[in-house]
């Protein structure tokens, strides 16, 4: 096998980004109701967070049960910034993203030394702690009822409406996916996958396991924060539930269902989990039970997740 043979095998992933972009483009013409644009915007937003979480779970092999915490940091940043600190929405978003990355760095260093259940429990603790702060610090966060978020303003234009966010979230998702794919093909991506495969073997090959896990943690935190900020600006309102345990679980389920380690799997997983409740509105009551069931069934029967399983089946044909 020559180098040219091997190199030719790589471009399939770039096709994926183009396909994603094309789908979004086509959808913009097919959809014509405000409500549908809004739902799709939410799909893109959660898909972005899921893609980020996939870097952590799929590549570094870390199960994070508190990732909604970073989502909330982004969301509350665009709420608190304009309301209490006089910042513009843009700088608030940027501040939120930087803050999320910083916090990920600070708690990541100690937490990521842990393994398996201990690590999962530590992330759970982080998420719950953040949720408590959001619920208790009423003067800043508005407490359990949350606070309103000032709409985005670009010069004199106040874009409102789901269609605007459909485009913004869609573009951010395409950008995020592109970044994730680049990462996967890079030495960092290989280092992360090596860590997932065997931490011992990774370290004897010169990979500083703690360092790379931290990088994955920070990247996933940043993705989540951006997604959270967009959701808050889209909704115009934010409550502590945006950092709650249920949301963390939803993110984990999206990654698991779509396929741990698969970037497009994360997108598919997000799409399924956001769209399904729309079709079965009575599902809301059964949210927890449903998530739990999906997680268990996935791990037992469909461990690779949707996208990798389908891809493997197609390859065999």
């Amino acid at each position, binding site marked *: *096998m020559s180098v040219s043979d091997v190199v030719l095998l790589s471009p399939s992933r770039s096709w994926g980004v183009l396909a994603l972009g094309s789908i979004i483009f086509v959808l913009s013409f097919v959809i014509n109701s405000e409500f549908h644009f809004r739902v799709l915007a939410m799909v893109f937003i959660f898909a972005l967070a899921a893609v980020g979480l996939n870097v952590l779970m799929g590549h570094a092999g870390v199960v994070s049960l508190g990732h909604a915490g970073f989502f909330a940091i982004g969301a509350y940043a665009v709420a608190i910034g304009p309301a209490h600190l006089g910042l513009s929405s843009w700088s608030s978003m940027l501040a939120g993203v930087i803050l999320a990355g910083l916090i990920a760095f600070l708690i990541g260093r100690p937490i990521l030394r842990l393994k398996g259940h201990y690590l999962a429990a530590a992330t759970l603790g982080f998420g719950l702690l953040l949720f408590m702060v959001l619920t208790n610090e009423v003067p800043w966060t508005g407490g359990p009822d949350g606070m309103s978020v000032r709409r985005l303003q670009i010069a004199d234009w106040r874009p409102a409406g789901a269609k605007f966010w459909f485009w913004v979230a869609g573009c951010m998702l395409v950008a995020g996916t592109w970044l994730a794919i680049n990462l996967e093909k890079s030495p960092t991506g*290989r280092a992360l996958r090596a860590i997932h*495969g065997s931490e011992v*073997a990774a*370290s004897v090959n010169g990979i500083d396991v703690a360092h790379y896990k931290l*990088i994955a943690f920070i*990247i996933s935190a940043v993705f989540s924060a951006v997604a959270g900020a967009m959701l808050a600006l889209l909704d115009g309102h934010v409550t502590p539930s945006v950092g709650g345990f249920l949301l963390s679980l939803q993110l984990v389920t999206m990654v698991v269902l779509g396929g741990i380690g698969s970037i497009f799997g994360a997108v598919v997983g997000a799409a399924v989990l956001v769209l399904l409740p729309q079709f079965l509105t009575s599902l809301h009551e059964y949210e927890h039970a449903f998530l739990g069931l999906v997680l268990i069934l996935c791990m037992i029967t469909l461990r690779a997740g949707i996208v990798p399983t389908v891809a493997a089946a197609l390859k065999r044909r």
Partner: protein
Amino acid sequence: MLEVENLVIEFGGLRALDSVSFRSERGQILSIIGPNGAGKTTLFNVVSGLYRPQSGRVFLGGRNVTGMPAHQLAHLGLSRTFQNLQVFFQMTALENVMVGRHIHEKRGVISHLLGLPSITRHNTQSQIAALQLLDQLRLASYATIPAGSMPFGALKRLEIARALALQPDVLLLDEPAAGCNPSETAELDEIIKDIAGTGVSVILVEHDIRLVMDISNEIVVLNYGRKLAQGSPIEIQSNPSVIEAYLGADATRERAHVEGA
């Protein structure tokens, strides 16, 4: 190249290694043999930075590296394979070997995220180097196959390819012939000799005595964590305490009886 001085490691009161010392040279093949439980793999684990010794020192190229973590030792030119195959099963053979090239690759997460052209160029370079190694070890046909689907003998060679991708000065091979049939072992024979021929200091832990006697320049015998003997293959073969360790005191008496008669 690699020097080990009075290494001691204990696990809950049991001395797995008791004042073990030896030295390896460039281009030399040094084999470590001994009955099961003698401490051979433990020795490797200490030397490659996975365990911390209670006392004693490790020198790499003259530099004191005792207690240094594994990834730092890799940067200093130490590489190893594993007895129980720590292959990245979800990655292709090519990607496995490319991981071995990690210390030679360009860092910078931001440039990785952005997929800058310089990264693409480096990627191709890495791919070429990795393919060459795969070729060298007759694994080229597995390049794009996930390692999980590869046969056992091929996986053993894959670990060696990955270790070589690091371009090490010292290579630790942990039972490379374990589970291999005679023809695979003969292949390994050649491969290891070639590696040493390029100036790498090879340290081998093995049970296959024939392989060891065939290719080693120097042999260290461990028993119960202690160094029992060190010398050339011929010296070791006729060393009575080595024979006793492997076959028991009766065998020594038998041999003396046979030789005496």
